[in-house]
């Protein structure tokens, strides 16, 4: 018998899978299913890698990226560096439905979200603030600077461009398996 419909998602985020499946069973579209699955993880802060209160940036702020794509119309809605709005996938869906654009970013994406009725609220938590202060205490390691002074492997910023430019080399690039997209 047919293996469809199908819900497939990265990492063992079971509740997200089941939220998407329930949406399909109740007659929702594939976009509705993707949105409800991703929104479940945003609410549950899956693994600390989705949603508010995780992965603080250098300034201690949590910002969100999300995207939704319709394989029938090839329409896409996406937000990058979305600030102070929790439901990023919901905002991405609004970009898809209410604009002819594809990707809105940063503070402007926040303003768009507010115009669509989303609540502007702080995405930091005690946990993300603790993660950030630990990072500051460890001389801001790891960080993602290069060819700057002071030496970013030993010091926090602010940084200035160094005179010597070492070429980028993907071959030796390693990522912390616990700090990623």
């Amino acid at each position, binding site marked *: 018998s047919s293996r*469809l*419909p199908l819900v497939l998602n990265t990492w063992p985020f079971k509740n997200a*899978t089941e939220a998407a499946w329930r949406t399909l069973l109740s007659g929702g579209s594939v976009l509705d299913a993707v949105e409800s699955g991703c929104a479940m993880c945003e609410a549950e802060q899956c693994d600390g890698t989705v949603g508010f209160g995780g992965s603080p940036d250098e300034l201690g702020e949590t910002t969100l990226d999300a995207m939704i794509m319709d394989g029938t119309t090839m329409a896409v809605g996406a937000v990058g560096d979305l600030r102070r709005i929790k439901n990023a996938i919901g905002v991405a869906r609004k970009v898809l439905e209410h604009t002819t654009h594809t990707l809105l970013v940063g503070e402007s994406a926040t303003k768009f979200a507010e115009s669509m009725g989303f609540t502007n609220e702080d995405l930091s938590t005690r946990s993300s603030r603790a993660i950030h202060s630990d990072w500051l205490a460890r001389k801001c390691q790891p960080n993602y600077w290069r060819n700057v002074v002071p030496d970013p492997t030993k010091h926090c910023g602010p940084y200035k461009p160094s005179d010597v430019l070492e070429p980028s080399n993907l071959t030796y690039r390693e990522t912390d398996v616990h700090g990623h997209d």
Partner: protein
Amino acid sequence: TIGMVVIHKMGRTAAGTSTNGLKFKIHGRIGDSPVPGAGAYADDTAGAAAATGDGDTLLRFLPSYQAVEYMRGGDEPSVACQKVISRIQKYSPKFFGAVICANVIGSYGAACNKLPTFTQFSFMVYNSLKNQSTEEKVDCI
């Protein structure tokens, strides 16, 4: 990060991602997740895919788009997923990444880049042959 692909019984496809990105990123940095073709991609005529991992590497190789194109060319989803990982390995052998792939008849697969601390990748599956969501694991290559 969550990357999700959904295939409807009528063959409609959708894909999506949501993430709070890389820890300690430079303020303003965006990863692969919101970029179509990198974080996820969907096309009813071929299939859908989503990726997770080091966004700055994934942004440069567009694994989700490439996996869908391999499935368009007839590759099974697991083969398509493995091929996009292998492409990136040539340039960046230690990159952290994983991909999930599904074609329009409901076949699916996944692949990941083997690292000392990352040898298996877990993903979730729910289809009409199962009566519940199921965690599956794939050995990295």
